[in-house]
């Protein structure tokens, strides 16, 4: 698995992969700054009220940075899904399997590298967005004492840890979609359609059931670290949401492993 991991790290040099990380960083920083600007410019509205209330608190920084969470999820999902599915589309999977016939070792090493890349991208995203907000706040004379207090740092770490868990789940969902579809176009299409249709549209008409859907459950985890009004907090409670998230992750791993192990490679 370590050999597969090291091999995959070399492939992460591709501009398409690096571009995914860059888009995550740039888009999040842009959205965070836009939110900051709206709050500090005196704008009002029902959507801004919870953000304005959270702004001066120790959770103010993660509240503002967290506004791009959905975007981070979508970018991470596309990055992982397209990266894995491309092995089929490009035909490179056959090369990999000839050199590493242990399919599960190959998939595990590949996922380890991809998740590491996603986590590093997330860490950079949070660090750059936070730095940008701190500089902007100081420039505008806004107090950031609460953000940089020990409570503020704990909130930031809790947010980061739960966001990592969320993106781990998202990455495993991406792996499953890629293994099942075996094509970049189909994989990205299915991944986006899944996020938009079952998780988006059905959730609007069936809220009770949709709280168990994987992407929503994953999103509840970092949502629990910001003020409830900003959320989304887990309606089933954090421990239950965490347990369900872990169960979803385990099921994605099991199904992907079984399918990949038995799959004919025609690519």
């Amino acid at each position: 698995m370590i050999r597969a991991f090291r091999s995959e790290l070399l492939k992460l040099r591709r501009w398409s992969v690096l571009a995914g990380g860059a888009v995550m960083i740039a888009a999040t920083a842009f959205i965070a700054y836009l939110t900051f600007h709206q709050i500090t410019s005196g704008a009002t509205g029902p959507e801004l009220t919870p953000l304005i209330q959270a702004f001066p608190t120790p959770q103010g920084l993660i509240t503002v940075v967290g506004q791009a969470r959905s975007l981070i999820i979508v970018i991470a999902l596309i990055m992982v899904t397209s990266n894995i599915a491309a092995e089929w589309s490009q035909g490179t999977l056959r090369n990999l399997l000839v050199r590493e016939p242990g399919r599960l070792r190959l998939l595990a090493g590949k996922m380890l590298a991809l998740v590491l890349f996603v986590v590093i991208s997330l860490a950079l995203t949070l660090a750059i967005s936070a730095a940008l907000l701190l500089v902007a706040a100081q420039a505008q004379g806004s107090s950031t004492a609460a953000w940089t207090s020990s409570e503020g740092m704990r909130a930031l770490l809790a947010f980061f840890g739960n966001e990592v868990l969320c993106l781990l789940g998202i990455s495993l969902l991406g792996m499953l979609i890629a293994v099942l579809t075996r094509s970049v176009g189909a994989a990205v299409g299915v991944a986006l359609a899944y996020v938009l249709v079952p998780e988006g549209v059905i959730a609007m008409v069936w809220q009770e059931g949709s709280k168990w859907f994987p992407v929503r459950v994953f999103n509840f985890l970092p949502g629990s670290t910001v003020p409830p009004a900003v959320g989304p907090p887990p309606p089933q409670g954090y421990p239950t949401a965490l347990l369900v998230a872990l169960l979803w992750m385990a099921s994605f791993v099991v199904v992907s492993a079984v399918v990949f192990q038995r799959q004919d490679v025609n690519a």
Partner: protein
Amino acid sequence: MTPSPDISQPEQAAPVSPSGTLAIETQSLSKHFGRRKAVDGLTISIPAGTIAGFVGPNGAGKTTTIRLLLGLLRPTEGSATILGQPLTHPERYLPRVGALVEAPAFYPSLSGRTNLEVLAHLGGHPRSRVGQLLELVELSDRAKDPVRKYSQGMKQRLGVAMALLPDPDLLILDEPANGLDPLGIIQMRDLLRRLREQGKTIFLSSHLLGELEQVTDWLVMLNLGKALFSGPARELLDRRGELVVEAEEATQLDLVTRIATEAGYTVTPDNGSLRIACPLDFASELNRQAREAGATRIAIQAQEASLEERFLALLKGDHA
């Protein structure tokens, strides 16, 4: 690929199976995709240390067979051993196998060197091997360029380097000459011969029958997923050709015509001589019968059929 000094000289094929062991052996190997039988009860054997040609028309099942041997596809039925290990445990034999399947596939935005390094890391091969192979296939000066900028021939050469990464005992090459210019084809032929001299087994799928005829010791002919022939190349080429019979007297040719016709072979008169389509070993029998019949002053010349002619004959159902 760097040619050795003697490439212009035609070489004798190596003795078949010098070690007496089999590199590949399949028993009733089958692969069905739905109702379509891509490989249908294939039983073949490839001796170690040979260059084995693998020929068949498009859709004959060559690539499917190769994918089965590489553990990329699961067989519907049958079994196989590769380098003495069962097909069901590819992890036991693939570290000693190098393969180029269909068009070589690479990460287009990565350089040729990085593409090889990805596989070297994965297979646990030393990085120094990458440089050696890039030199062998004459891509050292373009090693840092992204593969998307490579020509078809360069990609093919990089594919060969990829297949050679593990210094394999068994090399499986699917159309390795695709996209190569004539010099590249000659260099490829030379490389294959040198690898055989090192004791490696090469399983070579190709449409270039003339090329195969020059390098192969062993042949497997496939059609509709079944083996039409699997054995020494010489045996196939000797099996059927043409005997040209010349005689000073027409009566003697008449006798020869009668003997060959009674034996079931087609005789074609040609400018005072006869052309008899038959196995080449019929020559001695024809000579004996002709002498007994009184045709003592005839000259018999054996002309081998080309691999192409044999291939076409087998496809038409001529199994003689």
